[in-house]
């Protein structure tokens, strides 16, 4: 009994552990290893050394050099120039925030300046600014709440930009906790003082800076609105590509196994019609799917948002920023989506031509699915435009990336990249389809698969197809 169980068990294990099944695992490992190594350097710590004043116990101040994270820096404009505002400035670093005083004292000019701030000869990007209003000191001493203008700049719509967007809020929080100590000294023991006031004497007035425009709106809200509207793009690309790829490759492979393809190819008709009909049918199916999905998604998102979570005038604000989900933007993204689908179909078509049986199809499609997922994960975690050049080129070489970034590129008015992306995708499709047509018109379709089967050691499980390698 036991022996026979192991005979079957061994065979089943052997069947499962093949190149085809291990390849995706390796890919997953590599991908996440790569992401894991890159994330920390991109998100958190890039440090710089700056001069800072420090007050020692005897009350003497001295200049010291300290190392701080670039992400901890925030623009700091002080209209009050008082004891308490000074106190805030000096003590913010103890909360992990490094205030930087811009040359301009006009907040909007300062935001522009901070975008490319020159720190000891190194250009860094500071995305937040707080403005201490005149009369802060007086109001605090009179027990009044103080509002502080907090500016956040949005330069992309990835997940990291949310982190940057939050840092003005973090600064306000830090100011509160810095002040609490001081106010406690001031009002300690005063029974008429609200404990809440001591804890949170200041609150923020949020401004968002985007495309060189400033509007009184919370940046996190803008980001979350945009991501609620665009989140479905990557998901839809993934779904569509998986389905359409499978369909078209499957339809070729099925015709091969049933030998109906041979019948079609000896019929008195243009062979190109066979290819075009298949590609177009799959593309139309994909587009219908995309439309249905988008509409359902919008309804779903709309019902989730409940319609009234955004403040009055929010739509007008978005309009000012140039963030509009109108016919034009949707059309551009639609074209992008269509191009992506065509890329996927063209690749799948080639795969379908080269393989012999439907069983190995799944395995061969996995690389496509990964090509779809890599930019998806990357665009979720970071702004692809901030990647090192080589990584950036690699990521943009994946045609699907351009569709993921389409909305962002429209919203931050990066039209060059948008147009370049569309052209690149079109060229990509054209080349692949040309290759496909070549193969279709030659006899490779009927000889290639057999040749690879016959080669010693290259069984069905191998990933190499003639001279090509998939993956």
């Amino acid at each position: 009994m036991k022996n026979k169980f192991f005979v079957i068990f061994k065979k089943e294990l052997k069947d499962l552990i093949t190149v085809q099944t291990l390849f995706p695992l390796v890919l997953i490992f590599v991908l996440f290893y790569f992401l894991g190594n890159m994330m920390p350097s991109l998100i958190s710590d890039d440090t710089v050394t700056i001069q800072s004043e420090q007050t020692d116990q005897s009350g003497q101040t001295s200049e010291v050099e300290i190392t701080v994270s670039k992400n901890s820096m925030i623009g700091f404009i002080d209209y009050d120039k008082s004891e308490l505002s000074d106190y805030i400035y000096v003590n913010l670093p103890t909360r992990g925030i490094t205030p930087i005083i811009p040359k301009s004292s006009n907040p909007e000019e300062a935001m522009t300046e901070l975008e490319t701030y020159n720190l000891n000869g190194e250009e860094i990007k500071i995305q937040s600014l707080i403005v201490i209003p005149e009369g802060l000191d007086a109001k605090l001493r009179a027990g009044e709440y103080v509002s502080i203008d907090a500016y956040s700049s949005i330069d992309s719509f990835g997940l990291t930009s949310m982190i940057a967007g939050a840092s003005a809020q973090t600064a306000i929080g830090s100011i509160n906790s810095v002040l609490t100590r001081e106010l406690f000294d001031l009002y300690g023991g005063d029974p008429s003082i609200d404990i809440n006031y001591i804890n949170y004497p200041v609150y923020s007035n949020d401004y968002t800076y985007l495309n060189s425009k400033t509007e009184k709106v919370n940046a996190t809200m803008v980001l979350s609105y945009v991501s609620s509207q665009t989140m479905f793009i990557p998901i839809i690309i993934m779904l569509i590509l998986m389905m359409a790829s499978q369909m078209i490759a499957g339809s070729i492979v099925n015709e091969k196994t049933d030998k109906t393809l041979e019948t079609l190819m000896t019929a008195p008709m243009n062979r190109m019609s066979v290819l075009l009909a298949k590609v177009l049918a799959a593309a139309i199916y994909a587009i219908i799917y995309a439309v249905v999905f988008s509409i359902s998604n919008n309804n779903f998102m709309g019902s989730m948002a409940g319609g009234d979570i955004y403040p009055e005038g929010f739509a007008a604000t978005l309009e000012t920023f140039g963030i509009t989900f109108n016919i034009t933007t949707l059309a551009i993204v639609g074209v992008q989506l269509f191009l992506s689908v065509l890329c996927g179909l063209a690749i799948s078509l080639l795969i379908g031509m080269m393989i012999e049986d439907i069983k190995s199809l799944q395995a061969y499609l996995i690389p496509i699915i990964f090509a779809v997922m890599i930019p998806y994960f990357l665009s979720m975690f970071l702004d692809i435009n901030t990647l090192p050049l080589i990584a950036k080129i690699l990521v943009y070489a994946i045609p699907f990336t351009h569709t993921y970034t389409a909305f962002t590129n429209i919203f931050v008015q990066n039209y060059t990249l948008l147009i370049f992306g569309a052209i690149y995708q079109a060229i990509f499709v054209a080349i692949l389809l040309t290759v496909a047509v070549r193969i279709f018109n030659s006899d490779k379709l009927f000889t290639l698969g057999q040749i690879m089967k016959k080669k010693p050691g290259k069984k069905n499980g191998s990933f190499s197809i003639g001279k090509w390698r998939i993956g």
Partner: protein
Amino acid sequence: MPKLLEIKNVKKSYGKKEAVKGISFEVGEGEIFALIGPNGAGKTTTLRMISTLIEINDGQILLGDIDVKKNPAKARELLTYLPDEAGAYKNMTGINYLKFMAELCTNSAEEQKKSVDYAVSVCSSLGDAIYDKIKTYSKGMMRKLLIARAVMTRPKLAILDEPTSGLDIINGLEVRNFIKSLTETGMSVLLSSHNMLEIDYVSDRVAIIDKGIIYAIGTPKELKEKYEAQNLEEVFVKCVKEVEGSREE
């Protein structure tokens, strides 16, 4: 008999493997010509070259006055091809498959209807099953449907790869009788088979092929007489031995 198809010293290799090593034969109009030989002899390769699916490496194939290599599209208007072990679109009904193929292979609604009617009469033994989905068909039913498809446009040349292989005695006989009857319409048939016995009765002439070489061509009667054999199987054994023997000397 005027000739329809002429194969002149045709060669084909798959990578390094030479599948067909320079073969020549002719098929006359209204003739049934059979390539017979064991598995891997090069029969399918030869038939695929003639039906324009794969390119020849050397030699020439003439269909009428058409050079098949130079003008494959023109050749496809004159021939039909039935692959070995072929299937059809499983979710179509038999009749819809015939209609679909007729639409692809003809140029007018009239021709299409004529073709379908003929095909239906050819596979009349399917009965009402013609309205059933193809996935419910047995091997014999499938083969009849596909043969009907192959001849429905009455091509000048029908190329049938192993049309009777895998069929039971009754279905095999039925198919062979049908093929035999085709020449009455003036159609030429080029078929292949690895079963040398059953082909004797069907074919006007046969070519004995093995390892990409044609060893002998003639009517079954001629060949049996020449090699003093009871049947074509014996002819095959003897003529292969003879040629191999003369080579070794």
